[in-house]
């Protein structure tokens, strides 16, 4: 991806209004749908939208939701998601979504209206310093001050959003620029003046990586969201590499689906709520191959105790991710697909035999850890265990054979979804990993459903999170998007309650979900279907009914209120100090004050 965009160079300019230039550039960059909310500063664009059919506009109910919807669209398709909001409050409302996309490396373009150029800096009505506010919230941003720059900036934004490590880009559009005539030029094939990220890995690093992995006795592959971002071919190559090498593979929260969950070589997710086997294998490995993950603090636990005896190979498209938290032995800069393809080639070319007996011994050790069955739970009374609700949801969707996309909110339910819902394909799992944004799941599901009208799209939600963007039920109704909201209702901000139980002496300060709405009636008032499972006997029926209904549904699943999410590596602890569920023996780490300062 060295060229700016695909179209052939062209010098003749077409003269249109600025607003028409914006829409034309979107169309020429393959955009079919945008998520937006109107206002004074963007009225010229709305006027142009009214007069064309190429681009579909989805009217959200809050600008934050527009960005999350664009993220859901982008993550489930691999395309750039596009947002349109007005100046001032429209732009500031979008900021959370932009930071979310930045943290999770999601390609999004957000067009913001701005007051006319001659009023910028005057505290004009609905003026905000949008480029100033969003500078640290985006991969890059632009303020278009001259009409002749408009089409170039539009094309460039697509290139910047999707190349290298993807991310959000803001284009701030003063109203006079939208109204005045502007030349439209197609994208050129010229490469960008300064931004040319490296995608092809260096052969020396690849050879060194293969040399280490071939000779490893206890290797592990640790794959993250970079594999998903590199496109489905990267996930296919990951599977090929892991199978040909016989190594165990673990995925980060962002990487779920990059490697098939049902594969025997899959150890599950790693990190704070990862599996016992994944974390102990990371701790005990002798060579680690990190592909497209970033040694996030949720993954490493206490840094000075992280995988102490291993040689570390780190392949990432972003050089600034390498040697940031963890010093590595073999750095490789490149796109995950290109790296995996090169690794497979180099593996075949390297004649040295693998020590098969050492690998077999390693697998025996891993099987021992697996034998702990760290995700076991007991569904013993009539009260639905949240883990069981997710597990049944997974089993029933599999049994029905529906192509299923899962989004989540943030909290315990998110972790249970990651633990108990298996993903066999990439782009089927959308969760707010880096920023941990409550209110992400419903709008993201909306974006997924727009991109995949016939798929089954489910937001696994908590009763607290869902209220943060509940207004989007209106959008579901307007566009007849049959998204299913599956609430694990524990009447607590469960993840907060869990930390208060484990770290703050059980003082449950402000973490009870009081005065909740009746979610069934709430669904009905938004023209959706509401249903409730009060006990275990209702669970399967409610899940099946929810899936069968071709309308938006809220399923209020009343679950055990005091369930904790295990296993857990408490903050400040090491991988081999994880806490298992009560009744399962394992290292119980006391949390130090040093650990308590961590989030």
């Amino acid at each position: 991806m060295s060229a700016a965009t695909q179209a052939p160079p062209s010098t003749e300019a077409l003269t249109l209004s600025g607003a028409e230039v914006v829409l034309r550039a979107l169309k020429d960059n393959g955009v079919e749908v945008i998520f937006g909310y109107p206002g004074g500063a963007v009225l010229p664009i709305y006027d142009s939208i009214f007069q064309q059919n190429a681009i579909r506009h989805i009217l959200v109910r809050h600008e934050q939701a527009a960005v999350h919807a664009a993220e859901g669209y982008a993550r489930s398709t691999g395309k750039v998601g596009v947002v349109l909001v007005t100046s001032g409050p429209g732009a500031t409302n979008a900021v959370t979504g932009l930071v979310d996309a930045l943290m999770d490396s999601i390609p999004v373009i957000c067009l913001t209206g701005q007051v006319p150029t001659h009023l910028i800096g005057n505290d004009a009505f609905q003026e905000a310093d949008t480029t100033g506010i969003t500078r640290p919230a985006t991969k890059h941003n632009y303020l278009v001050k001259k009409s002749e720059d408009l089409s170039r900036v539009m094309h460039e934004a697509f290139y910047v959003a999707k190349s290298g490590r993807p991310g959000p880009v803001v284009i701030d559009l003063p109203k006079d620029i939208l109204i005045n005539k502007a030349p439209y030029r197609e994208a050129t094939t010229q490469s960008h003046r300064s931004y040319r990220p490296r995608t092809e890995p260096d052969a020396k690093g690849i050879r060194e990586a293969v040399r280490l992995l071939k000779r490893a006795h206890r290797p592990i592959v640790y794959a993250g969201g970079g594999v998903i971002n590199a496109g489905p071919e990267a996930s296919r190559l990951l599977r090929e590499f892991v199978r040909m090498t016989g190594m165990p593979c673990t995925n980060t929260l962002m990487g779920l689906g990059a490697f098939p969950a049902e594969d025997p070589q899959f150890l599950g997710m790693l990190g704070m709520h990862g599996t016992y086997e994944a974390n102990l294998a990371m701790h005990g490995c002798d060579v680690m191959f990190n592909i497209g993950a970033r040694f996030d603090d949720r993954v490493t636990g206490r840094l000075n105790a992280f995988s102490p005896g291993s040689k570390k190979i780190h392949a990432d498209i972003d050089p600034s991710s390498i040697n940031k938290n963890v010093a590595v032995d073999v750095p490789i800069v490149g796109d995950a697909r290109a790296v995996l393809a090169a690794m497979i080639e180099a593996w075949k070319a390297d004649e040295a035999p693998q020590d098969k007996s050492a690998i077999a011994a390693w697998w025996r050790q891993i099987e021992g850890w697996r034998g702990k069955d760290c995700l076991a739970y007991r569904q013993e009374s009539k009260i639905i265990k949240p883990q069981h609700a997710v597990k049944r949801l997974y089993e029933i969707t599999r049994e029905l054979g529906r192509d299923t996309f899962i989004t989540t909110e943030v909290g315990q339910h998110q972790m249970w979804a990651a633990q108990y819902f298996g993903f066999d394909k990439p782009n089927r799992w959308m969760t707010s990993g880096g920023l941990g944004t409550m209110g992400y799941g419903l709008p993201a599901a909306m974006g997924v459903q727009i991109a995949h009208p016939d798929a089954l799209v489910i937001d696994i939600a908590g009763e607290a999170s869902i209220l943060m963007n509940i207004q989007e039920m209106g959008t579901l109704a307007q566009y007849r998007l049959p998204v299913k909201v599956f609430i694990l209702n524990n009447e607590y901000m469960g993840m907060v309650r869990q930390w208060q139980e484990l770290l703050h002496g059980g003082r449950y300060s402000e973490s009870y979900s009081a005065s909740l709405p009746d979610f069934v009636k709430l669904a009905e008032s938004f023209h959706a279907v509401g249903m409730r499972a009060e006990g275990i006997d209702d669970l399967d029926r409610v899940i099946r009914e929810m899936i069968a209904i071709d309308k938006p549904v809220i399923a209020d699943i009343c679950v055990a209120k005091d369930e904790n999410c295990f296993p857990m590596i408490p903050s400040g602890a090491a991988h081999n100090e994880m806490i298992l569920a009560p009744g399962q023996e394992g290292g119980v780490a006391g949390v130090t004050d040093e650990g308590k300062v961590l989030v």
Partner: protein
Amino acid sequence: MSDMKGGQRAATIAVLVENEAGVLARVIGLFSGRGYNIDSLTVAPVDETGQISRITVVTSGTDMVIEQIKAQLDRLVPVHKVSDLSIEGPHLTRELALIKVVGRGENRMEVLRLADAFRARVVDATTESFVLEMTGNGDKIDAFVALMRPIGLAEVSRTGAVAIARGPKGIME
């Protein structure tokens, strides 16, 4: 300028950037947002059309932090080139200072004597003051300013360091 202090080193980094609105804010925001030090920072356009600016930033940190700073700078969209002059070979560092000293009688003679020794030039004078111009590395300017302080130092304006590698090779090669 690569003195080691408790695993910390100073680094003089040259950054060539597209001369567009907000680019300096982006660079400075990166340093403040990620908690890196800025000891000094200078910027001016350096090509014939004024399209490209050169930022010289002097910073300090562990090797890992300085590598991070360079990688973070390099991934900014308008950045053309990042070069760590302190480790890439011999280089020159210069700073310009304008120094105002106030005094009468014998003190004036002392100022001129010291200025001569430090190769500072008088660029403005009244019967009771001088403005001296001086270039050199930061240590030399520090030393001179320290000498002026007891005599009658009134004001100092300094540019911060600019730097360039020795030899025939250009930064973009």
